[in-house]
């Protein structure tokens, strides 16, 4: 499946940089490649995928409607295990989102130019994942009709939320994250939307025109744009770290053994990036294949992401080991108990699924052969996300099912509604993503162009010109 062209940029040379865009692509051909999925007649395959995804969304809607009608009891929760799939799904989706922001903000600040061809899709993924995540805290409360009390809205009761509660910090953290991510994504989209305004006709032109905000590509526009982009990148960067840190506070600040751990913030952030990159790999492999983006999204991109997965996966593995070490080293019997119980108790199957998927399988990425094999990449990434879902499940449920008093030990079993809500959230995610690939450019055209040799303002070769090669 891979030609020598697509693998051509894997090697870094001392004297020259590997190209980021392969083939003999020009500015115009890049635009055409990206515009094709948006401008062609809606393919049947898209409709089929959309129908499936939309049915999934319907399942989500029906599950939530049933949940609202009957009460939280339709899930398998009980008086010992007060959270299970609901919060697991929340953390899972928030975690997925992190890769997008990391790619678009942190890699931007670090001038990692390879990010340009994947950042748009990754950011879209972030926003859609955060939307999926936001569903769960909203619906998991017992009285949804007063869920707005979580927000500090002035009211006749003169009641404020409890600012000491990590759940409230979550409200602020996740809503800020969503707002900033959306803005960042939108700002990045403006030049590309303007391109499509100019390329399309009729109602499409009108709609794109509105969102292009009058972009004309003038020097001043570019200056303001780059400033705004930089500022938003700088704003997003701490959020990559803070959101999952605060999500981890839900657990870390409680006093439940298995939750109460200072390692949680870095461990959660690493896990989030880990799962996020796995999701980006999955999505990009599909997009690249379907929309023929081989020259833009190259094997080098995948290899880089696989390396990040290897790194964060190892960090996560280190955290698992550290948790056990601390449980032993602290001398805290409750802590010791819960970790032994995780590995050997009724939920041992979940624990070992997690370890296998998150720690063992990603180690295959030490091999470049595997790193550069799309099938392997795809399958391993799926495993990583299964593992990361189980990580949250293990943290939440195994800690709750065996707490301090042995009299109150219980077992959680999901109901069909638990399962359908989770599956439905994928429906929501893919519905949004399919709309995205149909109506918005999945690759940041303007940004990709900046990493092409043509964009190099230097008249002569300064190391950025792969094709011409030659002497310095």
């Amino acid at each position, binding site marked *: 499946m891979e030609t020598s062209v697509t693998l051509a940029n894997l090697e870094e040379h001392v004297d020259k940089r590997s190209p980021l865009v392969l083939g003999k692509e020009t500015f115009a051909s890049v635009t055409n490649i990206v515009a094709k999925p948006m401008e062609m007649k809606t393919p049947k395959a898209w409709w089929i995928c959309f129908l499936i995804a939309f049915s999934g969304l319907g399942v989500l809607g029906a599950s939530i409607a049933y949940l609202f009608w009957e*009460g939280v009891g339709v899930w398998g929760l009980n*008086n010992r295990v007060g959270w299970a799939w609901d919060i697991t799904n929340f953390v899972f989706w928030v975690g997925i989102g992190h890769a997008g922001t990391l790619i678009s903000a942190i890699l931007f600040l670090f001038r990692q130019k390879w990010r340009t061809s994947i950042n748009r899709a990754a950011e879209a993924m972030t926003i859609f994942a955060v939307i999926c995540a936001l569903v769960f805290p909203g619906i998991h409360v017992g009285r949804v009709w007063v869920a707005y*009390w979580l927000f500090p809205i002035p009211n006749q009761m003169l009641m404020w939320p409890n600012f000491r509660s990590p*759940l409230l910090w979550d409200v602020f953290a996740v809503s800020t994250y969503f707002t900033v991510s959306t803005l960042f994504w939108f700002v990045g989209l403006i030049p590309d939307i303007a391109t499509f305004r100019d390329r399309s006709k009729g109602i499409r032109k009108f709609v794109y025109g509105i969102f292009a905000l009058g972009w004309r590509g003038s020097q001043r526009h570019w200056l303001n744009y780059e400033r705004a982009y930089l500022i938003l990148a700088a704003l997003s960067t701490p959020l990559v770290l803070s959101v999952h840190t605060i999500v981890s506070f*839900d657990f870390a600040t409680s006093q439940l053994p298995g939750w109460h751990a200072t390692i949680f913030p870095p461990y959660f952030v690493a896990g989030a990036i880990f799962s996020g990159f796995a999701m980006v790999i999955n999505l990009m492999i599909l997009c690249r294949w379907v929309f023929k983006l081989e020259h833009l999204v190259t094997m080098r991109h995948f290899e880089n992401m696989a390396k990040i997965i290897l790194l964060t996966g190892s960090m996560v593995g280190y955290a698992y080991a550290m948790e056990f070490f601390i449980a032993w080293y602290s001398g805290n019997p409750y802590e010791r108990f819960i970790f032994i119980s995780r590995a050997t108790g009724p939920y041992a199957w979940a624990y070992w699924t997690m370890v296998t998927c998150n720690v063992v399988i990603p180690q295959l990425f030490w091999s470049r052969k595997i790193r550069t094999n799309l099938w392997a990449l795809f399958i391993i990434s799926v495993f990583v996300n299964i593992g990361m879902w189980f990580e949250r499940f293990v943290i939440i449920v195994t800690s709750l099912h065996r707490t*301090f008093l*042995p009299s109150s*030990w219980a077992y959680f079993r999901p109901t069909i509604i638990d399962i359908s809500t989770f599956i439905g959230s994928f429906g929501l995610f893919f519905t949004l993503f399919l709309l995205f690939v149909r109506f918005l450019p999945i690759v940041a055209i303007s940004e990709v162009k900046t990493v092409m040799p043509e964009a190099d303002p230097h008249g002569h070769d300064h190391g950025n010109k792969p094709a011409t090669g030659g002497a310095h």
Partner: protein
Amino acid sequence: MQSENNQEKSGRKYWRSLEEMAETPELLARMKNEFPTGAAELEVTPGVDRRQFLGIIGASAAFAGLTSATGCIRKPAEKILPYNKRPEDLIEGKAQSYASVGRFGGSVFGLLVTSYEGRPTKVDGNPSHPMSLGGSTAFAQASVLDVYDPDRSQYVLKAGVAASSSRGTLKAVKAALATAAAELKASAGQGVALLMEAVPSPTLLALVREFQADYPKATIAIHDPAMRWNESAALELIGFKNAELYHRFESANVIAAFDADPLGIEGDVVRNSKMFAAKRRSVDESKTMSRLYVVEPAFTNTGAVADHRMSLRSSAMGEALLSLAVELAAQGLAIPSEILARARQTTSPNQKWLKALATDLILNKGKNAVLVGHSQRSWVHAVAFAINSALGNVGHSVVVRSSPLPASARTLAELTSEMNRGQVQTLVMLDVNPVYSAPADLEFADALKKVKTSIHLGYHADETALASTWHFPRAHGLECWGDLVSSDGTAAIAQPVIEPLYASLSDVEFLAGLLGQQKTAYEIVQAHWKKSSGADFESSWRRWLHDGVIKSPMGETLSNNADFSKLGQRLTGLGTSPAPTASQLELRLALDRSVYDGRYANNAWLQEIPDSVSKLTWDNAALLSPKTAKDKGIKTGDMVEIKIKQDKERRLKIAAFVVPGIAENTVVVPLGYGRRFNGRVATGAGFDGYALLGRDDLFAFAADVSLAGGTYELATTQEHGVSDYEYDTKVGAEAIKNRGVLRELTLATYKQDPSLEKAFDKFNLGDPKNHRTLLWQRPNETRGNQWGMTIDLNSCTGCNACTAACQAENNISVVGKKRVLKSREMHWIRIDRYFAGNVDNPDSIQAVFQPLACAHCETAPCEQVCPVAATVHGVEGTNDIAYNRCIGTRYCANNCPYKVRRFNYFNYSKENDESNPLYAMQKNPRVTVRFRGVIEKCSYCVQRVNAARIEAKIRGEEVLRDGAVVTACQQVCPTDAISFGNLNDPDSRVSQLKSLPRNYAVLSELALQPRTTFLAKVRNPNPELDSSTQL
């Protein structure tokens, strides 16, 4: 409430009766004239009669049901009806208390009934009654729910069918009764029989004597599922005619119970528990304690608190007692020779154990008690009496009293054989249900078919009602006049607090009616007491009603002139019982701690209360020890078939449940489940153990237990849904050991060093002074009332009374079996049960109970995490919830280390009301009914605190005096294990208890500083025996 199944049915049924109740004007008119004389005492509202009030309440509930069925209105609109003329002494919303008396599981004790605007909402023990002393039982607590039982009998049935004309009116009932009385009269006394329970009601028994006078040839038979007749037969065997035993635990330093449960469900459990607990608590002042030895086949509440417990099958109890007699004789006690002759032939099951017991008994001569369970055969009782007599206990801890019951009463077996012989043409059955609860080998239902006319009075249209010629609905004890006398001779008048909800008769009215007397219960009871009272009857009567106690005791104490010669004859003819083997188990049937003999099977509170030991709800099961189960390859939840091969094979398919503490090769089946009448709560709950019951004993030999194929889901509140019981027990035991949740010492260790820190506090954090700096500012704990509680593990017998009382007081919903299976039960106070000892050695197994409700932590983890500040710290140190602010994130429940918070996963209270709108009448108006989606938990009965605060404010007191607030669990506790009060008052009882070295906080190392602390358990093992297993 199993509302999933019954909602629709109940709704329809209810509306039908509503029409009859509220929509026919002439019916209302009739009802107005229906009040019996004496109704003035009922505090009946003039103008609006109670029935009309009911109609309106019901109509509004039904209206609410209608609107919510359309689904548009979340909070149902309700109509209220104010008094247009307020009765002079009635303040709306203020509770009224009435003294009464009740009989629960073989014990008669005084009651205080709380009533709001004519609705009884709670039943408690009467502190002035010697059998209650303020305490009561789960049965008594739940009895108030029975008043509002949706399935109680409402109509007269003729041959099992409701009579068609004007049914449901008292006039119709009385007319029917007159017809039945005429039928009885027509029999001219030929073949008349009366079957009743052993109800010690002076008025009723006087009527029975009148019945006997009218029908001299009539057979009077007593049906007693507890088999207490064994005791009377034993007393008769040794020369006491018509007598019964009464135990005084206050003068017993050593108690040896053989297959008896005097602290659980046998006899005067409330008084026994009070007296027993006092003898345990004396450890704090005098460092002395009583010692309790228990020999039993399965854990009872008594066995669980024993210092020494021997697991022994029921059939070997007599031999164990004979061996004890031999030991006692060997140690110099004068045991009658008639007994010794036979006793020397027995081999003791555990010689060392009995020897130590014998030494202990002799050391405490005259200050101990040897008890035998009611189900044991009469000779065993007689041997026990001989031992008590030789030890000098008779007259002190063991008292023989004359029985108020008719002397010539027959047993059910004797009556049945008369019926089978065709000697009974007319059978009157007074509040008994023999078709269900008669031993299977009597085949009572068949015998009943041979009776021409059977007249039945019962609370439900139950198995017997449907098989009888006539069935009359019985009024609840809180609805009618009556009287009862306790086993110590204290009599009390039962006064009604509500007009019968349906046209029904009291026992007294029914029997009087059959005798052709047209008087009301009030007239009959009053007339009876007028005879025996002095000149000023009116004022005595008023005092009796007010106090709930009639001071001068009835009956007499008999002096000990026992003659053991007949016992000797009986003993010589006695064989030995065969020891069970792995293939032929011994079957022990037992009265159930939740439904007794089945009479409480339709009570949702009792069905959902977890059994003290097995923690089973909604079902019974065949209980097996882990070893026996393993031998037979049976696991918890397997369906097994039990077969008893006697002249006719008796068999039952039942689910198995493995629980420690059962004697080896024994299977225990609680009775009272598997009811076969149309009760929406009882139907489908458990298996009918009566199918295995033989006429002589509650135990049987040679039970063949085999896997029947299939499994059955059993709902427990501990070890919830555990897939691997053995693993879980092992890991659990390890965890308890490491955690110091339970703290238990022996008396010897306690005497040496009463401080608990050394033994248990591995983190050295038990002392608040050692607590680290807290992140949050500590609340001010030095001003005003600061509430706190102690629970004495040394007293607690795990009887569940607190759980039931809390449910009644705090409007706690019932969730049903399916949700218990999902660990969603709602009880605010639960009783954690832990085992200690070696699973494979039943003798070493001990149980410990730990009642646990919200501990009201000073630095409560739940308060910090609530995002909407719905649960906050009160100024008086309580951990409060504003239900209306709760949005239901359940974060607080997750962060609660005690796991005492309960979440309304569905709209349970609405479901409860829909399953039966009458349940709403039981609700305590001072406690908010919780809506779907909110957390709830123990509030330290904040409504009672506030009521006491108002009282104090009226009196001008700043700080409430000690004892002004009594929580529901504290009030009911028959062992006074729970104390509640102001921690700022150094003289308050709770402060004093907290200063004891036994005081400790569960999970103290978390620095939560809970306001509820526990007093460690102290066991008093006999040094001669291996000291009990330390937890």
